[in-house]
């Protein structure tokens, strides 16, 4: 009888023998269990029971017994090879995937490293190798080799199961074909030293949650992921306009030479609403320069105001009117217009308002400075021009003020 060949994998259950029978037969047992109290007793019994050649001999123990696999003649576990193969597949998958993404599909140089720099792929390669290998070891052992979960096995509902998972060592003779001699098996077990013997019916194959279904589900999930991934990848390649969740992609903005889609009139730059005034930029004094003559400089003559005025003058006026306002600036003669000499009598006689008006509106070749200067700066520069004029035409009492 080929004992050795059928003893691995399913926990020694020849499925074909029972598939046709349907319900377990009451008059004939599927297997007979013999209970032993010590591992030594179990190990001594194994060769005796196997020698009787009544059926497949299997043991049920609370923990792994050393050397029992040789005693039972079990084949070596193929798990090591499976894990090695899957580990190598994992390594190659990770390397290939990373290389394809980083060097082919999405080649971006980061950190000055070449697109296909293998050094950076090693850590993930290692992790994926371990991931593939462990899942093969764990799930392969559980579902593929041990065919668990399986809730219909008769041992699970036997009287002996409480001992099996606690402190009893059970030897089972299991049917290989219909000519199973359960009485003989019981006798053989007793003869080998079993303290108790129990006959069991055939396995119940009805529970839905089985290793096969779990493996099918896992396979289905894997295939679904693969299909979804590929579909997504090609969908975005072939239909680039497909953008179900592009919350950072739509950013309305003005393109040169194109109407803006953001505003109704198509202009990107909008006119301010009528009547609004920018803060600190009061509109110019309306009317003519003469009308502005009556305006009074609102700023006090303080150090800060003069400092501000000086800054404005240096930045905006000095280039034409010169450092002291004599109209001799750093412009060359190529510049046609002749800047005004602010030290001329005409300007000495100007009221503050007229100078202010000129700063704001410009005069002759001089452009308006209103866009760049706040109200404060305009009046501050008027103070400063006044100071320049007074410095160039100093009187004796001014000196007294200075020395005091």
């Amino acid at each position, binding site marked *: 009888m080929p004992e050795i060949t059928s003893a691995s994998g399913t926990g020694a259950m020849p499925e074909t023998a029972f598939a046709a029978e349907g319900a377990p037969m009451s008059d004939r047992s599927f297997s007979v269990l013999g209970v032993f109290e010590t591992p030594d007793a179990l190990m001594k019994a194994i060769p005796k029971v196997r020698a009787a050649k009544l059926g497949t001999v299997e043991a049920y123990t609370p923990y792994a017994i*050393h050397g029992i696999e040789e005693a039972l003649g079990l084949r070596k576990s193929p798990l*090591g090879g499976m894990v*090695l193969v899957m580990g190598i597949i994992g390594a190659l998958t990770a390397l290939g995937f990373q290389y394809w993404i980083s060097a082919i599909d999405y080649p971006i140089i980061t950190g000055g*490293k070449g697109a296909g720099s293998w*050094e*950076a792929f*090693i850590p993930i390669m290692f992790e994926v190798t371990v991931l593939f290998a462990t899942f093969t070891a764990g799930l392969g052992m559980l579902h593929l080799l041990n065919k668990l979960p399986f809730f219909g096995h008769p041992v699970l509902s036997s009287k002996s199961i409480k001992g099996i998972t606690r402190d009893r060592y059970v030897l089972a003779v299991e049917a290989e074909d219909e000519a199973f001699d359960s009485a003989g098996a019981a006798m053989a077990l007793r003869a080998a030293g079993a303290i108790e013997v129990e006959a069991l019916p055939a396995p119940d194959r009805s529970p839905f949650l089985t290793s096969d279904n779990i493996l099918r589900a896992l396979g289905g999930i894997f295939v679904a992921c693969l299909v979804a991934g590929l579909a997504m990848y090609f969908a975005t390649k072939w239909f680039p306009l497909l953008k179900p969740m592009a919350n950072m992609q739509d950013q309305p903005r003005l393109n040169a030479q194109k109407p803006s889609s953001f505003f109704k009139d198509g202009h990107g730059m909008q006119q301010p609403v009528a009547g609004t005034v920018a803060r600190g930029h009061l509109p110019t004094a309306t009317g003519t320069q003469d009308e502005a003559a009556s305006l009074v400089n609102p700023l006090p003559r303080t150090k800060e105001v003069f400092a501000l005025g000086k800054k404005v003058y240096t930045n905006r006026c000095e280039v034409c009117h010169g450092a002291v306002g004599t109209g001799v600036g750093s412009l060359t003669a190529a510049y046609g217009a002749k800047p005004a000499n602010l030290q001329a009598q005409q300007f000495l006689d100007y009221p503050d308002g007229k100078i202010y008006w000129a700063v704001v509106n410009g005069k002759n070749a001089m452009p308006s400075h209103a866009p760049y200067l706040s109200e404060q700066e305009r009046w501050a520069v008027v103070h400063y021009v006044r100071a320049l004029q007074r410095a160039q035409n100093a009187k004796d009492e001014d000196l007294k003020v200075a020395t005091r």
Partner: protein
Amino acid sequence: MSPNKNTSNLPSSWLWGAVALGALGVLGTYASAGPERFWANWILWFVLLFTLGLGSLFIVALEHLVNAKWSVPVRRIPERLATLLIPAVPVGLIALAALPVLYPGTRPEAAHHPILAGKAFWLSLPFFSVRTVIALALCILGLWVLVGGSLRQDTTKDPAFNFKARKFAPAFMAIFALVITLVAFDWLSGLTPEWYSDIFGVYVFAGAFLSGLAATSLSVLHLQDEGRLEGVKGDHLYNLGGFLFAFTVFWSYIGFAQYMLMWYANLPDEVIWYKVRLQGAWRLITIALASLHFVLPFFALVTRDAKKDPRRLRRVAYLMLGAHTLDIYWLIFPILGASPRFSWPELSFALFFLGGILLWIRGAMQKGEDMPAGDPFLREGLEFRL
């Protein structure tokens, strides 16, 4: 077991012949190939001798440290191999003459070098020599306590040695860490003293431990061929193979970590060391090193049965010793130039030192009993099963 062509069957006269022939070549090297080539070879063999001896001593100390029982029957082998530290002392002292030739830090101009000036004292010839002498002395101390004590126990059968060894082993580990780091930094990294890597000591340790393991496995297999070491079974071989496998991976891990971090950060003062080794013919040697030191032994030993298989274990052990030699060569020889030097001077040195080492080991293998007969755990070790 088939005693295939192995060294234990070589007549001693051949080995003496090899030493004599090698000695001629060694002298010829000094005369015609120049002192730099001569000393580079000399340091290569000093480091090989030293790592082999110290790596074997580490195996012995590790057993005492973790109270391992399985390795008691084979402990005498690494103990005997550790005696290679005795010839390493004169070889190392002679190597001190290489300092001004090959080690820029020992030259007077180092005092004006922008980087070396600050550590000129550390690199200077006197301090370098003192460190080397201290390192060698500490090794001999460890050898005296661990190996000498064990040999004496053969006759005394006094378990007091086990107490002493267990007490001494942790202290030896500290000594070991210090010594291997000093030797790594001084003799290997000191060839390019501007370069630094704080993992370098661990890298050299991994290589040393591997070479010790490989030599131990090989000697065990040879003694078994001669019918000695009765009682040492496949289970013991499995453990030796397992350690070889694990530390092959460890060496690669350390080597890759050092390389990857330097490659990634791309700092000029670090990558220059690798740049030299990744150009031209050195690139091929680097690839060969990675293949021979990692890929090949990894796949050769990955399965459970392979670790028990004496034939495969023997081949991998030879391979590991060769790869370790290549590793040290790869660490030292790039200072001689962009093209790897390998011709008659290297062969003569190999003949001279290999012959000498084999003669020494052959002598050492007669020292004491083949197993530590006085160790109370010997029986437990022999009964070891996986």
